[in-house]
């Protein structure tokens, strides 16, 4: 496999306020994110040569890139819609990067927009698009509850021990989110509150599940050669990995439910391209797919942040907190931003981008001198994973 390490750079980003944006449509959210990105990059829409647009849930089937084209008046440039479940935002971004690396375009945009609060449902819904029988009554919390139950059993954790470890992840994420102005939720929580919350899909309770919100985020991408024309501190793509596992894991014979091949494969590909041998120590921050507490725990192990079966020890030691060895989801993650599906990958990238520039919105949550950051989304039943690694220095 080839590499596009240090070939493309992000020179501008924007991110809308996330939350219950009842009075704003998807077009408003697109404008909010895109115009912040234009300003950040010092460009106008006339500079954009192509747009990779990520949106999962449309008002009807087959809406193409109309939200971006109609709201941003991009002219007659290509608007290429991407739908890859929860990984859509990252895959749209990576497609945009590959298009620039190919030489086909000089300046492109990746835009993710999702308006979940127009659907009428408080969750992500039941039975989403695969099969009217095999998927019957499959919910997102249900699918991830299956993982938690098996993980606890496989590593000899009692239900109480397991749930407490998961609760600590969410206490950390809420602590981070409380400092993040663009997050949906700003409340701090306690382990006790998490454990006593209503059950959603046992052993997962309310606070084990991410929020449901509206949001948009946008990136302007150009080649490394041209990046310095836009700004002094572009952020470089160091490596990426995308993996789509075959067949709904539910029916896959022998599938362990404690590790996902798509997570392992996508992260290893990204490390390989970025030249990372020891992610636990080399990465300075990571934004990972915490749709549920157990997902974040599994990612610690599948990404090599923690040894197999030892994530609990790192959680107990505070290794992933803002001041820990590897801060994870320092903006509060999906837990506090909610998960407007198509926007999340770009929102996570926005946090990594700002942190690597030393420009976090509040100084108290700026990490000291970060060099390498990872952003990741994981979607489907689940089976699709996308990882992108960014750095603020070439080489």
């Amino acid at each position, binding site marked *: 496999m080839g590499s596009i390490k240090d070939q493309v750079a992000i020179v501008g980003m924007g991110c809308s306020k996330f939350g219950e944006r009842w009075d704003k449509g998807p077009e408003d959210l697109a404008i909010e994110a895109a115009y912040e990105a234009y300003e950040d990059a010092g460009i106008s829409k006339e500079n954009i040569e192509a747009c990779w647009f990520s949106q999962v849930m449309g008002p009807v089937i087959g809406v193409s890139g109309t939200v971006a084209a109609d709201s941003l008046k991009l002219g007659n440039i290509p608007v290429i819609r991407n739908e890859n479940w929860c990984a859509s935002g990252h895959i749209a971004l990576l497609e945009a990067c590959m298009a620039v690396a190919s030489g086909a375009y000089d300046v492109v945009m990746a835009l993710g927009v999702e308006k979940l609060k127009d659907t009428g449902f408080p969750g992500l819904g039941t039975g989403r698009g695969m099969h009217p029988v095999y998927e019957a009554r499959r919910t997102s919390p249900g699918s991830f509850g299956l993982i938690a139950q098996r993980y606890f059993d496989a590593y000899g954790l009692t239900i109480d021990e397991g749930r407490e470890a998961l609760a600590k992840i969410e206490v950390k994420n809420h602590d981070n989110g409380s400092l993040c102005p663009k997050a949906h939720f700003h409340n701090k929580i306690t382990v006790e509150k998490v454990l006593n919350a209503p059950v959603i*899909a046992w052993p997962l309770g309310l606070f084990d599940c991410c929020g449901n919100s509206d949001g948009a985020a946008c990136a302007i991408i150009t080649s490394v050669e041209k990046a310095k024309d836009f700004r002094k501190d572009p952020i470089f793509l160091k490596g990426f990995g995308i993996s789509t596992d075959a067949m709904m894991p539910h029916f896959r014979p022998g599938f362990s439910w404690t590790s996902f091949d798509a997570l392992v494969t996508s992260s290893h590909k990204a490390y390989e391209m970025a030249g990372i041998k020891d992610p636990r120590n080399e990465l300075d921050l990571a934004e990972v797919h915490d749709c549920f507490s157990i997902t974040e725990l599994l990612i610690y192990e599948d990404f090599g942040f923690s040894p197999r079966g030892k994530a609990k020890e790192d959680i107990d030691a505070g290794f992933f907190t803002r001041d820990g060895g590897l801060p994870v989801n320092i903006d509060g993650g999906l837990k506090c931003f909610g998960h407007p599906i198509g926007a999340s990958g770009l929102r996570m990238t926005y946090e990594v981008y700002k942190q690597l520039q030393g420009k976090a919105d509040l100084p108290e949550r700026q990490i000291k001198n970060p060099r390498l950051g990872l952003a990741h989304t994981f979607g489907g039943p689940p089976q699709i994973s996308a990882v992108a690694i960014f750095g603020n220095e070439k080489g």
Partner: protein
Amino acid sequence: MTKVGISLFGGYIPYIRLDRGVISKIWGRPSIGGERSVANNDEDAITMAVEASRNCMGPQGIDAVDGLFFATTSAPYKEKMNASLIATAADLKREITTTDFAHSLRSGTGALKAAFDSVKSGSLANVLVVASDCRLGYPRSDQEQTFGDGAGAVMVSGENLSATFEGGYSISNEMMDVWRNPEDTFVRTWESRFILGEGYLNHMKEVVSGLLRKCGLDPKAISKAILPAPDIRSHKNLAKQLGFDINTQVQDPLLSNVGHCGSAHPLLMLVNALEEASPGDLLLLATYADGADAMLFKVTDRIEKMKNQRRMKDYLREKTLLSSYARFLSYKGLVETAPGEPFRLMPSATVSWRDRKCILRCHGSRCNECGKTTFPVQRVCYHCNAKDSFDEVPISHLKGEVFTFTLDNLAGRSDDPVVVQTIADLGEDKIRFYGMMTDCDPSEVKIGLPIRLTFRRIYDGAGMHNYFWKCRPVRNGRSE
């Protein structure tokens, strides 16, 4: 003359029961005592018929079966062959005669008679006769307490007989005593003294006496009289007036602990009688509805070999009590349930048809190259990547255990808010199955719990019933 009779038999009673005291308390009426069976909210006449058929044949279907006759008064589809769906889920071959018998509580014995005639004439060799019903009595009525839900199945054959068919006698009589109009949810009745006296008692006496006379038999010659009855008092009256000894000669009418299961009741009682019978026994079955049918059976030595199929006692013993009358109404569709998280993907007739071998027959694929089995069928092997090199294999008969599960509070109905999402490993090959768990208390589910598959209605949409397989816990008593 060619002998015909019953080779195999099996019944089915739902796991859920309702204490009749719960009904009586709600309405401030006396309870008739005991409990009634209640089909789960994912069961209907078709799914219960599939369970009874699997109990009759063994769960894998039998190639020699060339007919399936289905009898009911509560068919999920008013127009559409219900028997075809049952035959498919029971994994019977395609070259088979299927027919629905309907509209009467004598449809079960009517189907049985038609099967005996078909086999005797040489038209068919082995006919599975299955009757299944879940009727509704008006709220507060006697019938609400006395009705039950259940299914019974017998295989009518010319050889390997457990009981031979010795003769029958029928009367037809037109009277408005018990009926339902096309738009009716509940069973209508005329005055009970007319129904029970002029209708039930007189015609049952006439048909039983007629059969005994025709066969030259005295009532004392009968080992067990199988007399489905609308209530316990009528049952006792009838047995007494016919001269049967109530203590020794009369088959349990299954009224105190199950209830009258409509067109299925004669077959269910017959199955129960066969499970308790000894070689040489004479069984007399009679049933009433706008006239009456009576049939005489002689039990053969082969009955001794059928002991491992005797499941009725387990079904009668294993049960869970429904906690409230409200849930009973909801399970019966009489109060609307909030649907929980809406299911946005409607059933598709083309998908269900195209995938029927997996969805209905529960077939997986065994790779010809590496031997691994997967469900549903995979054209490209997950393990060795061989393309289109597999055999279809049935998996619905396999025992399994829970690999992992979750108790999902988001996806359930308001009357059953917890959906037990289950990942199970089936059989020695550990075939992975994903589905819902039914007939369980969610708190009893744990990793390693032994399960079997059962055919259920998973949800309705687009005007269609959507059927698939679910897991259920293996209960210790059932010989399984």
